């Protein structure tokens, strides 16, 4: 009897530390975010709230959501537009451009060593620690010392078109935001697609080649149709990660702008939804309102994850690069 009980308890004994840490880092903050979103927690009543979660100084309210959705915050529509631009454009790079990239690297380049060098090079932005990525970009775009403006001049872009500051001049800063994040995301798509292309049975491609198809025809008519699921996976997965990612923007604009990231990001037009939530909390200390803003993302996130499971099923989420022939 005791032994049977032991056998039942043993797995949970092994799992307990993980579950405890998950509770601390995921579950508790998740529920707390929901709660905070309905409060007016700010720097004024924060200490009272820490002392007692149910203090009278913190009021339950739906004002936060009125501000988000009913135009109570005039800046929120700007944030929405920037987010749309950011997610849409970077997604185009991550899911679309990386497809071209992996067809080039994994199919058109037959030389293994060359293909390897290219693959590793494209991984550099992902592997580089975030702050170093921010540092080297800050140098690269520096109008005086950096290489971006000379490079652009060299390929014939007139001097008058080049901004005096890539960080601050508006359309340029937004282009920079897209490119900088695009480089990181491109390798995600590349990894998934490359694995998928490698798993296509060679017979299929050889048959087409023997029948006289060119490499481009093979790419268009054989490879791309087979990558339908991986493409859908990359698009779906990246939508959620992009919606919530702001660390690179915070690091580049925050460090390069010198001083408060919030003001710089606003001026440069790179204030995306998740960064807005972060800055409301940690530079304006409006914890309740900030939670409400990120609660929108939490809800989107949960809905998307449910959609992923319905759409892909468990197995496909695990092996996104599986190809069904």
């Amino acid at each position, binding site marked *: 009897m005791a032994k049977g009980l032991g056998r039942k308890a*043993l*797995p*949970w004994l092994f799992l307990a*530390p*993980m579950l405890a*840490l*998950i509770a*601390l*880092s*995921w579950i508790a*903050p*998740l529920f*707390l*975010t929901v709660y*905070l979103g309905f409060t007016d927690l700010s720097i004024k009543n924060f200490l009272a709230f*820490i002392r007692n979660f149910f203090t009278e100084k913190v009021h339950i309210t739906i004002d936060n959501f009125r501000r988000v959705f009913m135009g109570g915050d005039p800046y929120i529509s700007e944030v929405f537009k920037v987010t749309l631009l950011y997610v849409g454009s970077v997604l185009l790079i991550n899911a679309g451009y990386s497809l071209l*990239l992996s067809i*080039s690297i994994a199919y*058109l*380049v037959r030389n293994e060593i060359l293909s390897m060098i*290219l693959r590793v*090079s494209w*991984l550099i932005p*992902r*592997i580089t*620690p*975030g*702050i*170093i990525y*921010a*540092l*080297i970009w800050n*140098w*690269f775009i520096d109008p005086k*010392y*950096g*290489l971006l403006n000379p*490079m652009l001049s060299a390929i014939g872009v007139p001097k008058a078109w080049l901004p005096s500051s890539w960080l601050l001049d508006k359309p340029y800063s937004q282009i920079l935001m897209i490119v900088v994040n695009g*480089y990181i995301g491109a390798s*995600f798509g590349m990894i998934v697609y490359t694995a998928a292309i490698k798993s296509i049975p060679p017979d299929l491609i050889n048959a087409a080649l023997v029948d006289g198809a060119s490499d481009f025809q093979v790419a268009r008519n054989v490879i791309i149709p087979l990558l339908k699921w991986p493409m859908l996976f990359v698009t779906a997965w990246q939508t*959620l*990660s992009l919606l*919530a*990612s702001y*660390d690179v923007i*915070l690091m580049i604009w*925050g460090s390069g*702008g*010198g001083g408060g990231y919030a003001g710089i990001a606003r001026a440069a037009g790179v204030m995306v939804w998740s960064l807005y*939530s*972060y800055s409301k*909390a*940690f530079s304006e200390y409006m914890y309740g309102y900030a*939670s409400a803003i990120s609660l929108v993302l*939490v809800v989107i*996130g*949960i809905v998307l994850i449910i959609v992923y499971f319905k759409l892909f099923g*468990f197995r496909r*989420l*695990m092996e996104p690069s599986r190809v069904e022939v």
Partner: protein
Amino acid sequence: MARAKGSLRRRFLRAKLAAVIKYLVVVVVAVVPLFPIWSMIAWLLIQSFSGRVILGLIPSSLTINNWRFLWSPIKMGLKEYPNIWPITFNTLLLALGVSGLVVLVSTMSGYALSRMEFRGRTALMEFIIALHAFPSVILLIALFVILNKLGLYGKGYMTLLGIVLIKAGLEIPMASWIIKGFFDSIPWDLEWAALVDGCSRWRAWRSVIVPLVLPGIGAISIFSFLAGWSEFLLVFTYVKDEAYYTLPVLIYHMIGEFKFIDWGMLAALGLFFTIPTLIFFSTSQKLLLRIYVGGVKR
């Protein structure tokens, strides 16, 4: 006959043209966009050892003055930055803490997920994958409240301890998943043999299975070490006392101050910080790439 020859030649030319276009596509799509990235890496290496550089890449003189932060305090006007070594120590502490905790916890849970039957096993695995998809950075505000509630905010090393716990918690779902994969690849029979010979489950785990998943454990520990080493947001948000900064946060603050006057030192500092990453990647790239494929969100 002549016509056949002509068409053969035409076909040969067309094939050649196709090959040229093919390589043109490769160069435009996959090589040209790498020039900025390559030049940035080259700059980091060159600038850190040279005085003035022309166009960022052509050094004019060799110097180790850029590395002076290693032996003398960094000053900017009247402001003196914290000494680099305690900051490096903090960073190391954070990285080791995260990696130790992640390894310990995820080998246990990975083993249970791979080998044990219990109710809710599938549901738990689905839950772990869902967590992996869920963007943790939007929980920072609530985590800030929790840190305050636990009394770990603004308490020096205790704050860093809180960050270790949080960071480990964020890394653990994926790490458990990866370790589970390694356990899955070990044949059941091996464990059976140990159990039949009278080992307890614990003993079998410790002396038969763990040695076999050592590569997996190595990969997890390196991966989570690097994740802790380069963690920025948590420390930036929760640590306000300069003495308890980690290197990424110090670099963040220094970029803004020094970007107009001393790129050399910034590059040297950046390279100094990247050393562990470089070491780990040059020694165990295959293992790490395998993990990076699944382990990183974007």
